[in-house]
């Protein structure tokens, strides 16, 4: 095994709360110094660890993704690796020339022309002048801005600006490249082009650490990934497994109305939860049948039924349950607050994350309230008892296990004609 290109050991970064947003005034410092002197020099400061005990290694030529929620420490990790900020503890070893790309167009100046900005931005990203000279034509061609080379970039369209910015960055050639979310800009076409270029970079034998929210990009580029949560490492390993772990950690127990797509003054859902044995929960194992409790406010007398849609982890509709239409759940309700309680008889589902759309409807007439992904639950990985095989959503074989009745061995019909006998494949 070759020596790692990046070795991170016991890395931690502590921020004083408020430090990132506030600077001191001289007066404050002086008065603090005075109070400290009189109170015996004790300082009580609230601190948070943005990163704690983070250790992992990246082999030369490997492309590693870093995933995690907002605030999980991804950016802090990248900022330490790229020497923008210092760690509070721990150590990082980087074997090779390091280039970092935390945004495209760092240091671009609107008054300067495209040509001038290529040199300025290149120098800021750590390229030598001769290197920029050499790649100049290539950069211009990639950005497709030949005609506007001597126009100040303030006259560029957003698309041109981004293309130019990415073109400079993409021609950076360090041995270790640290990339943050740069693909999250521009239109779909441009993103595709960037992704293609990133793929070339990745295949070019360079070591890359890639932070992104874009699952597709990470899956395409990275064989291994690091999952961060709350500043610590949750998982290091194959990207596929990393996403499963990430998803499993990402469930939000709270009822959410962020995606309310239909709203009427007639009725609305005010709360919902999943109960198992009377306790609110969002994690189940296969075979458990949770109760769904939905609280709704009815403001005008109307017929109301509850409908539930289960979506898989890619938000594709999977199971639908229109209570009103199945003939057992349409009620004539006077104004007031009501609680619906139903038991979900889930079929055999693959492990992973699911979400529930909750709908109040006048059956087959209209929606009264429609909340997409109001609840999220996670089905823990469970092996099939007979073989130990685990059915995961990430396999791309759907999410529902189809049960069959017969499991008798195949019936022998007749022997093959001798001429057609084949050896083992």
């Amino acid at each position, binding site marked *: *095994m*070759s020596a790692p*290109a990046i070795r991170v050991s016991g890395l931690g970064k502590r*921020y004083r709360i408020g*430090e*990132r947003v506030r*600077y*001191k*005034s*001289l*007066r404050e410092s002086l008065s603090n110094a005075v109070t400290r002197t009189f109170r015996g020099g004790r300082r009580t400061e609230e601190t948070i660890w943005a990163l704690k005990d983070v250790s992992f*290694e990246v*082999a*030369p*030529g*490997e492309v590693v993704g870093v995933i995690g929620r907002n605030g999980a420490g991804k950016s802090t990790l990248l*900022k*330490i*690796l*790229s*020497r*923008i*900020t*210092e*760690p*509070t*503890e*721990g*150590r*990082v*070893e*980087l*074997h*090779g*020339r*390091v280039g*970092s790309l*935390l*945004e495209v167009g*760092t*240091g671009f*100046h609107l*008054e*300067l022309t495209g040509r*001038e900005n290529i*040199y*300025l931005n290149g*120098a*800021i*990203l*750590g390229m030598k002048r001769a290197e920029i000279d050499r790649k100049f034509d290539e950069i211009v061609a990639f950005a497709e801005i030949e005609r506007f080379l001597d126009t100040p970039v303030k006259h560029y369209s957003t698309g041109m600006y981004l293309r130019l910015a990415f073109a400079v960055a993409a021609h950076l050639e360090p*041995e270790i490249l640290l990339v943050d979310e740069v693909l999250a800009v521009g239109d779909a076409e441009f993103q595709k082009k960037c992704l293609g270029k990133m793929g070339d970079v990745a295949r*070019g*034998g360079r*070591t890359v650490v890639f932070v992104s929210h874009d699952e597709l990009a990470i899956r395409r580029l990275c*064989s*291994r990934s690091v999952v961060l949560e709350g500043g610590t490492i949750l998982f*290091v*390993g*194959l990207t596929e497994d990393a996403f499963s772990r990430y998803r499993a950690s990402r469930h939000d127990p709270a009822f959410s109305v962020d995606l309310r797509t239909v709203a009427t003054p007639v009725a609305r859902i005010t709360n919902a939860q999943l109960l198992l044995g009377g306790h609110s929960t969002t994690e189940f194992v296969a075979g458990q049948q949770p109760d769904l409790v939905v609280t709704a406010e009815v403001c005008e007398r109307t017929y109301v039924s509850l409908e539930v849609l289960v979506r898989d982890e890619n938000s594709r509709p999977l199971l639908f349950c229109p209570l009103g239409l199945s003939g057992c759940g349409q009620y004539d309700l006077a104004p007031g607050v009501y609680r619906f309680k139903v038991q979900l008889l889930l079929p055999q589902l693959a492990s992973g994350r699911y979400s529930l759309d909750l709908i109040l409807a006048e059956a087959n007439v209209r929606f009264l309230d429609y909340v997409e992904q109001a609840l999220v639950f996670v089905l823990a990985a469970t092996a099939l008892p007979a073989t130990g095989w685990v059915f995961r959503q990430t396999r791309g074989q759907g999410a529902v296990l189809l049960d069959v009745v017969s499991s008798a061995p195949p019936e022998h019909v007749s022997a093959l004609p001798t001429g057609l006998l084949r050896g083992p494949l």
Partner: protein
Amino acid sequence: MAAAEGRVSAGAPAEAVPVLVIEPGRRLAAVRLNELWQYRELLYFLVWRDIKVRYKQTVLGAAWAILQPLATAVVFTLFFGRLAGIGSDGLPYPLFSYAGLLVWTFFAQGLAQSSASVVGSANLITKVYFPRLVIPLAAVLSGLLDLAVATPLLGVMMAYYGIWPGAGILVLPLVLLLALLAATGVGLWLAALNVEYRDVRYVVPFLVQLWLFVTPVIYPASVVAPHLEKLGVPGWALGLNPMAGVVEGFRWATLGRTAAPISLILASTIVAIALCVTGALYFRSVERSFADVV
């Protein structure tokens, strides 16, 4: 731990791979001049950007560089030269004050630009690594062009008054280097302080104004020295203000009427070097928190 480890890189470089170790910083920082040297091209590009942008954005462009010291010299000549009758070492007062104001303007601009430079470069500092010292250095250096633009007028004025430089002109580069050191030293302190204490923004104009009056720009050092000596303070003590040495040295080098103010320049040089070294060390010791605070 890791699953798919041990993949080997394509074409591992044969020469020694640079190893970079990142660890929590120690209390005392080194200036790391060699690293600064590695980034000299960035310094060049930043100076070039500052100049280019400044001249592109203003209507008068380079004319500002002349107008500022010239207008000030006219006002000084009227009020201090004519009305107050302040001495000028036997030189025509307009020439005397314009020469002083040339280097003074360079210094004042240097302080203004460099003190605001780090805060103004927040977008760079939070996104990419390079030695942060490059930023205030570029701010001070970009002022040299203004100085170069305004200097020919001094030559014209000298020709008009029939004053020719003596051998002192050979020392002019050293005097300018001293001006650069003084501006850099103070600029580094202010730039670093400004990140942590935003009061600095208000202090700088005030500081520059006061500093002008304690520097022999309006009056010659020869007016003040006797008063100091009467108090038992040697005349070179005036040089503890590094700009005193710069202004007097510049006048001597270009106009060359007085005796060489050697002790004054020596004192100023020592102070300017001390400011530079301490400024750079202070800057380095606080720069690690720049990205978190800016």
